[in-house]
């Protein structure tokens, strides 16, 4: 009898459409799986992924740039997410105060006005694309408030971020387009940060960055790396989360009506979307010291992918994990990671997504999605749509 060995290629475009059955096979048959082609371990159980997030000596971030082995050399501006304490703590602490509930609340009114401004022009036509008309603009605009990127430059920066993350089907290495997107951003943010260093102090992220460079706390390369990071992180993932939530709420109209009736439930629906269909698939670590998991030895220096969207569907952690239930409201998913490296923009992403659906559901509660016109972005990490076209009853102005 020949056994089919479980296999998973995070670069396979077909896999991106519905990765969950394959993750289930790995969780059941080979939860500590080594993909020989990519030379990377993939952990798929909640317990194992959570352990990797907690055991900061065995699982380190230094040198764990992305799924691509050589990306550190090809993308030469350091991002603090690829460092470990104490350096990591020192840099992260510079930005953390801007991302706490108070910091995020300061952006809520602005976010709401922006969301409304993006929806309103479409109400008369009765058609609206959750990503192309909303998701791709809003998070970029809000993060740009923090980095002082003017509205006139945002499309360009977003285009470069898209270039950086785009992967052709089964493209396992960085392409010319990826590297070019990164370099274009580096060039832009080099000039941008130099310009802002000459301006009076700004009470936002760019202010903190240029001040830290002046004080010698950050190098100029770190400032550029951080701004690139924010352009990607503040843009791609929340964009996709908005699209994923629009799609899941369309698939579950009864739950959507619950939200229309009681908008206070929307933040629970955001949590459930993060658990059920988070926009970040895999977080990468390096093995800091040899460690044995489920009988397999991971060697120091090995690369490990923590498959968070699989962990969030683990039946040993969540009851009926493949059921989308906004009433669950569970916050023990790991969509933002877990612990000291967890997403710094988590509160911001939650707020943005909640505000978008508060405003959308008021105006187009019974939207329909044209499933055949859904289009996906393809990346081994960021998972979601580039187009989620919806129709609804046109409204008179």
């Amino acid at each position, binding site marked *: 009898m020949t056994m089919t060995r479980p296999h998973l290629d995070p670069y396979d475009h077909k896999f991106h459409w519905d990765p969950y059955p394959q993750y289930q096979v790995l969780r059941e048959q080979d939860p500590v799986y080594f993909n020989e082609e990519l030379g990377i371990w993939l952990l798929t159980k909640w317990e194992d992924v959570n352990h990797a997030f*907690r*055991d*900061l000596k065995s699982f380190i971030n230094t040198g764990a740039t992305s799924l691509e082995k050589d990306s550190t050399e090809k993308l030469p501006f350091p991002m603090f997410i690829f460092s470990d*304490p*104490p350096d990591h*703590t*020192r840099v*992260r*602490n510079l930005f*953390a105060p801007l*991302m*706490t*509930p*108070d910091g995020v609340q300061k952006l809520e009114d602005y976010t709401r006005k922006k969301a409304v401004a993006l929806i309103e022009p479409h109400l008369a036509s009765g058609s609206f694309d959750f990503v192309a008309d909303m998701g791709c603009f809003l998070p970029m605009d809000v993060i740009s408030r923090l980095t002082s990127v003017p509205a006139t430059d945002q499309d360009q920066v977003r285009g470069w971020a898209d270039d950086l993350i785009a992967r052709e089907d089964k493209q396992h290495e960085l392409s010319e387009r990826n590297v070019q997107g990164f370099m274009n951003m580096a060039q832009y943010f080099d000039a941008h940060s130099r310009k802002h260093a000459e301006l009076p102090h700004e009470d936002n992220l760019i202010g903190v960055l240029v001040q830290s460079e002046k004080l010698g706390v950050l190098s100029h390369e770190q400032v550029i790396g951080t701004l690139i990071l924010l352009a990607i992180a503040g843009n791609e993932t929340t964009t996709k989360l908005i699209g994923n939530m629009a799609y899941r709420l369309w698939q579950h109209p009864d739950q959507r009506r619950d939200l229309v009736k009681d908008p206070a439930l929307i933040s629970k629906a955001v949590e459930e979307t993060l658990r059920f269909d988070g926009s970040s698939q895999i977080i990468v670590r390096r093995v800091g010291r040899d460690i044995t998991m489920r009988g397999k030895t991971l060697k120091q220096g090995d690369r490990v992918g923590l498959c968070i969207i699989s962990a969030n569907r683990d039946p040993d952690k969540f009851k009926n994990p493949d059921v989308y239930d906004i009433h669950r*409201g569970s*916050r*023990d998913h790991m969509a*933002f*990671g*877990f*612990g*000291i*490296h*967890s*997403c*710094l923009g*988590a*509160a911001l992403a939650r707020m943005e997504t909640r505000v978008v659906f508060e405003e959308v559901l008021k105006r187009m509660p019974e939207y329909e999605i044209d499933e055949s016109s859904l289009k996906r972005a393809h990346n081994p990490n960021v998972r979601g749509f580039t187009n989620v076209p919806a129709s609804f009853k046109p409204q008179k102005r």
Partner: protein
Amino acid sequence: MVAITYVEHGGTRHTVDVEPGSSLMIGATLNMVPGVDGMCGGICSCATCHCYIPEGWRSRISAAKAEEEAMLEGASYRDKRSRLGCQVVVTEEMDGLEVHLPPEQGMNS
């Protein structure tokens, strides 16, 4: 380095060295002290680094800001000694501090 002792609810003690300038949450999670999750990584958004600061030490530690108080309001087992470890910056003056931990982390639902 600053020596901090974390005392689990059941009484188990963990004395660890913590870098000044980091936080009580970082000190605990870097050393895998059981009973501290620090899920959100220090953005005051999850209340899973809830801890108790003994009476005698409170005057030596900066007071909680409104956003920390707001998060603590939802935390299980809150009392007047409660703080979020991620919001308590570790200083040299805190050498020898004993931090007690609640029976479990998380929010009242």
